């Protein structure tokens, strides 16, 4: 036995130990710094978006009381039930009635700054409830973009002055505009809405999911479970991996060349958009699906095979349920990417001006990111806030979609 101190109890060792702990602390701080930086950037993004976006959910409106008892509109319920009731009311002189009362309330200068299509709002009100034709009703009518800008202290000096006068008299106000969530695109920033693009995005995502998920999962299953390992499957594997890295605009060109060639009269349709996005989502699902399937322990397969399960039973009873959470994670990533995609959809014509929300999968539509792109390109100041509001809607949609997928994933994980 030597009487030397054990090597782990020397002063040098303790010095080294201190250094080791210091290195660990430095590493921890670096990690914490990275997290704080990302959180900061995210917070900055959300705060600016939220701040700008709030304005997008509001608009400048003017209250105009209309005395329908004096207006002389027929108000025949049968006529008002017709689909062309608005035209009927127009023919009966509704626009000039609205102009008349607007002038009474706001003066001729103010009345000129009522949005030209304001009478449609009144018409909608009448159609919704014809009994108002027997009363005096106050409508909040959107101001013209110029006056709205004036209210924000922008634009021409005479507009700013007019806005100041009207708002001092309490006749011009910024009001919550929930209609933004119900309308579609328009040329007037006061009249635009996001519902058209939101619905377009929803329809497109449904098509993308319905196409990319089953095809992607089946492809992943086949490649992992059945395909022989040879040059051909290697080639397919490399191609799929490369496909996931192809710039999205190329998929747009493909959609343009192939899908629009097959369905020539479906330009801008969510069906075509969804199919195009499915092309770029599928490789992501295939790759994540294969990894999830690979991660299923071989012992589980062996166990199932050993009691006499056929290969298909092994796949559907054991492999797929165990791989599903991983597959869903990949699907979330792929779908989130598809939801935010603009370029390929521009190629297939989804940048068209679509003033009515799409009726179905084949009617012309636009999607949220394209709408944001289009609005951000507008010269009119009013579109700036609308753009931010649209971004908020896009982010909320994204969160809801991911939330749903995470909920599904957790459910499947619990079941097993």
């Amino acid at each position, binding site marked *: 036995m030597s009487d030397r101190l054990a090597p782990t109890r020397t002063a040098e060792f303790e010095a080294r130990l201190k250094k080791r702990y210091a290195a660990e602390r430095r590493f921890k701080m670096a990690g914490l710094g990275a997290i704080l930086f990302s959180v900061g950037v995210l917070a900055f993004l959300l705060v600016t978006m939220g701040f700008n976006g709030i304005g997008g959910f509001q608009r400048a409106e003017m209250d105009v009381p209309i005395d329908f008892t004096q207006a002389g509109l027929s108000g025949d319920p049968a006529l008002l039930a017709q689909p062309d009731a608005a035209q009927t009311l127009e023919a009966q002189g509704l626009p000039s009635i609205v102009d008349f009362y607007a002038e009474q309330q706001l003066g001729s200068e103010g009345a000129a700054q009522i949005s030209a299509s304001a009478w449609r709002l009144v018409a909608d009100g009448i159609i919704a409830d014809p009994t108002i034709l027997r009363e005096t009703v106050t409508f909040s009518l959107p101001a013209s973009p110029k006056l709205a800008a004036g209210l924000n202290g922008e634009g021409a000096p005479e507009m700013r002055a007019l806005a100041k006068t009207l708002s001092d008299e309490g006749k011009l106000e910024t009001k919550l505009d929930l209609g933004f969530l119900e309308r579609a695109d328009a040329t007037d920033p006061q009249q635009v809405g996001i519902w058209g693009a939101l619905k377009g995005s929803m329809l497109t995502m449904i098509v993308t999911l319905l196409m990319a998920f089953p095809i992607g999962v089946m492809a992943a299953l086949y490649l992992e479970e059945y395909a*022989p390992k040879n040059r051909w499957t290697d080639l397919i594997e490399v191609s799929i991996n490369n496909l996931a890295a192809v710039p999205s605009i190329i998929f747009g060109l493909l959609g343009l060349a192939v899908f629009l060639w097959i369905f020539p009269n479906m330009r801008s349709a969510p069906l075509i958009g969804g199919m195009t996005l499915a092309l770029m989502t599928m490789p992501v699902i295939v790759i994540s699906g294969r990894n999830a399937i690979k991660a299923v322990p071989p012992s*589980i*397969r062996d166990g*199932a095979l*050993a*009691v*006499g*399960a056929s290969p298909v039973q092994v796949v559907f*009873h054991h492999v797929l349920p165990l791989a599903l959470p991983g597959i869903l994670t990949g699907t979330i990533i792929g779908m989130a990417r598809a939801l935010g995609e603009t370029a390929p959809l521009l190629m297939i014509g989804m940048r068209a001006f679509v003033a009515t929300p799409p009726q179905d999968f084949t009617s012309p539509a636009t999607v949220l990111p394209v709408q944001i792109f289009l609005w951000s390109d507008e010269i009119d100041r009013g579109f700036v806030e609308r753009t931010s509001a649209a971004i908020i809607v896009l982010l909320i949609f994204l969160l809801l979609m991911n939330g749903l997928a995470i909920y599904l994933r957790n459910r499947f994980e619990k079941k*097993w």
Partner: protein
Amino acid sequence: MVTVVHPNLEDTDAKMSARDVSVFYGDKKAIDDVSIDIPTKYVTAFIGPSGCGKSTFLRTLNRMNDTIPSARVEGEITLDGEDIYRSRMDVVQLRARVGMVFQKPNPFPKSIYDNVAYGPKIHGLVSNKTETDEVVEKSLRRAGLWTEVKDRLDDSGTALSGGQQQRLCIARAIAVDPEVILMDEPCSALDPIATAKIEELIDELNGRYAIVIVTHSMQQAARVSQRTAFFHLGKMVEYGRTSDIFTNPLEKRTQDYITGRYG
């Protein structure tokens, strides 16, 4: 070099027999020309140093080697006289008749009940809940697990202890009423108490099923088996009654192994 078979080995009826079986992984020969009869009423133990091909040979008996693309089997293996590789016998049916328990317990990540009910369900052996309940209870009782789990059949099979998991896997195998049960080092991942329980269980199952057990523990082979085959470098060196192999080995290599010279 052919296998030395102890001469006093009386003719028992063979459940399975292998004739001149060789197994290749690609070009590599893992099993070289093995012939053996697996008796119906006894426990047969395969012993030998690790890497000598015990698992490989065991897996040929229910064609689990089919799942390894590079594996190739030559020779003839019969179950009740029927060639399991070349006849019209279906591999799914074969595995229902020749069950298997693995080295590492591998219960499905499902409830205990579903683990046991799975085999009978996919083979259509049960048609309603009552029948399934019966099979599950019977199999768990036979596997000596019933009293421990009967109040928590809905718990996940993976939540059991290692020894319980292995007995669950045995219950899963016997639920389809196989004729042969193959066990590949079923106790190597278990503690001594759990091992003792499994050995007890093997004793109880002996006679009802033909059992083949791979083990690296010679004591275990001596305790649970009546027949022992010693494998070395892909060859079956010696085969005979367990008592003879351990007290009176005819081959030097067998003697070296059981006296702990290697392995």
